[in-house]
């Protein structure tokens, strides 16, 4: 059974967004922007859930998205706190300068 076009568009869109987010996360040299890219990836996931829920006439997807958003919020809080902590110590949040641990 082929889905509606809108669903397909949403799946494609989610794939594109996920990729943009993933690539952005490895290319941008600002930890905050990296984090934003990760948020974008989460949104791509949300899109899949919503679209699938819509197609399958199930609300579980929406519920899951709710939890994802909760988690995203928590991650944002903790993550930004961590960035601030790092910045205080190192005065930079360029991921290429945060390399004390390696090898």
């Amino acid at each position, binding site marked *: 059974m082929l889905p509606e076009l809108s669903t397909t568009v949403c799946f494609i869109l989610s794939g594109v967004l996920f990729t943009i987010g993933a*690539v952005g*996360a*490895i290319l941008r040299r600002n930890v905050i922007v990296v984090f934003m890219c990760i948020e974008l990836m989460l949104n791509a996931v949300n899109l899949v859930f919503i679209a699938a829920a819509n197609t399958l006439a199930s609300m579980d997807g929406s519920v899951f998205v709710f939890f994802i958003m909760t988690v995203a919020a928590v991650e944002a809080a903790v993550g930004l706190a961590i960035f601030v902590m790092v910045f205080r110590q190192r005065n930079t949040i360029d*991921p*290429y300068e*945060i*390399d004390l641990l*390696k*090898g």
Partner: protein
Amino acid sequence: MADYIWLIPFFPLAGFLFNSAFGGRLSKSAVSWVACLAIFCSFIAAALVFAEFLRLPGAGRVFEMDLYPWITSGQFQVAIGFRLDALSVIMCLVVTGVGFLIHVYSVGYMHDDPGFKRFFLYLNLFVFMMLLLVTGNNLLVMFVGWEGVGLCSYLLIGFWYEKDSASDAGKKAFIVNRVGDFGFLIGIFLLFVSLGMKGVWTLNFAQIGQHAQLLDGPLVTIITLLFFVGAVGKSAQIPLYVWLPDAMEGPTPVSSLIHAATMVTAGVYMIARLNFLYRMAPDTLLVVATIGVLTAFFAASIGFAQNDIKKILAYSTISQLGFMFIAMGVGAYAAGIFHLMTHAFFKGLLFLGAGSVMHAMSGELDMRNMGGLREKTPVTYWTFLIACLAIAGIPGFSGFFSKDEILWKAFSASQGYLLIWGLAALTAGMTAFYMFRLLFGTFHGTCRASDEVKHHIHESPRVMTVPLVILAALSLVGGYVGVPHVLGGSNAIEQFLAPVFGQGAPAPAQPQTAFGFVSTAWASGGAAGHESSLEMLLMALSVAIALVGIFLAYLFYVKNPALPGRFTASFAGLHRWVENKYFVDELYERVFVRGVQRLGAFLLKVADGWIIEGAINGTADALQRLAGRLRRVETGYVQEYAFAIIVGAIVVVAYLVVIPMF
């Protein structure tokens, strides 16, 4: 009585054990008494057996007993067992008799040596081993003795271990002997296994003898040749003779006892003991005779150019052993044993005499620094002279009878060959020459020693001269046990030994073998007949040759001492070769010693080092390098880690989704 024959070897062992346990606390003389007594007891025991034998009929002259089972493994069962028969009893008498005399002599000779007690320990041990060798009733016990005497020889050659040359010589003796033992061992294995495959699992001489006919010809040839390899090693024949001259590094009584009278004849004894096998292998006998005569000649030729009196005697021993092997090779076992016995007397005497000379000359060995000892050491001189006459084969002396018997057998026996006889006879002349060269050089002429040495020259003490005299007497009369029929004797020794060797009867018909045509060709000239006239003629010839030899020696070294110099000058090249013993030692050194060392160095470096360790360390290194590289992947940059996750995701997706689609 048969049950007590183990006592014969036991006495020296007891002496050895007693002295090793308590020797440290006993005085020197007590130690030497114990040692001599032990040997004497053995001698008495052997003599008792001998006497018993004389009473018994020929067939009954065998005492055999097993002491206890030694090694038992499956069908392989060997006992520590002893066998006394005509052959071994003669050997026992020679070993203990001459051994006793040399023990006594050593008491004087070694008196001031710090290793006095140790010396007697070794000597007793040696006699024990030698007796084990000659009384063992199976090949393995014989082999024990065989190796045991080798060990004692090693220990005694290296007695003065602080001298590098001595310990080198000991080691050389042992190793060269081991080469021979290699053959001996393989021979034992082959014999055991081949007989075993016919259903007879034994190493006992008597049983091997009984079942020898089960073996087929080529196999026997191989087995006997292998045994002969052992004999070549122990009895210092070509090509394994090189250790014996070096063995003169040992104390002189040792040279006398081990390297002249007893141990070196073990090879001869072994062939005699296994005569029933050799009889079946004419090809081997031919090889034995050939090696024997070549060795005899070759060693004698080296003896020409040596100046060290003990070295000369050593080469002479090699040469005389060659004679014994000629006897073995032509099937004249009794003659060989006879010569073995007389040789023990006179060669023992010669060495003891040489020892006496050394004693007088403060340890000097080089003939060029001697001369004119005749007056100062008369007993030594006269006994030495008797021995020289005996070895030269002057009629009436013991060597004459035994050597002539061999020569005659070489000529006449069915396995005898003219060429062998000719070369042997020539060698006999050479022997006379170099022995008298030695005699003249040492005892005649003017003394060439330094003043200090000259001042000290004196006759040896009684304890040394008495054995000399006894041995001289034996050298004189020892031959009369084997006076040949042609001279009106009864050849008593041959008769006595007959139960062991058969009636001296040669093997019936010569089977055709690979060597067959050669032997027939060689034999065609010999063995014309048994006429006594021919025997007499040949005897006269050999005496003549000996006399010529003596005369030449007289000419060269007494009459005209300048002659040898001129002679060597004109044959400088040849002389250099002879003087340096044909560079055989150097050849061996280069080929074997350095060959093995070079191979070892090569293997150590290439096989162990490069290949095996290389492979292992290579793996380890590769892992380490890989680890270093992998470690550098871990850059510490968080985005590269994320990158790895993405790559991983791509791979996983590709593997799970994309690839299965195609």
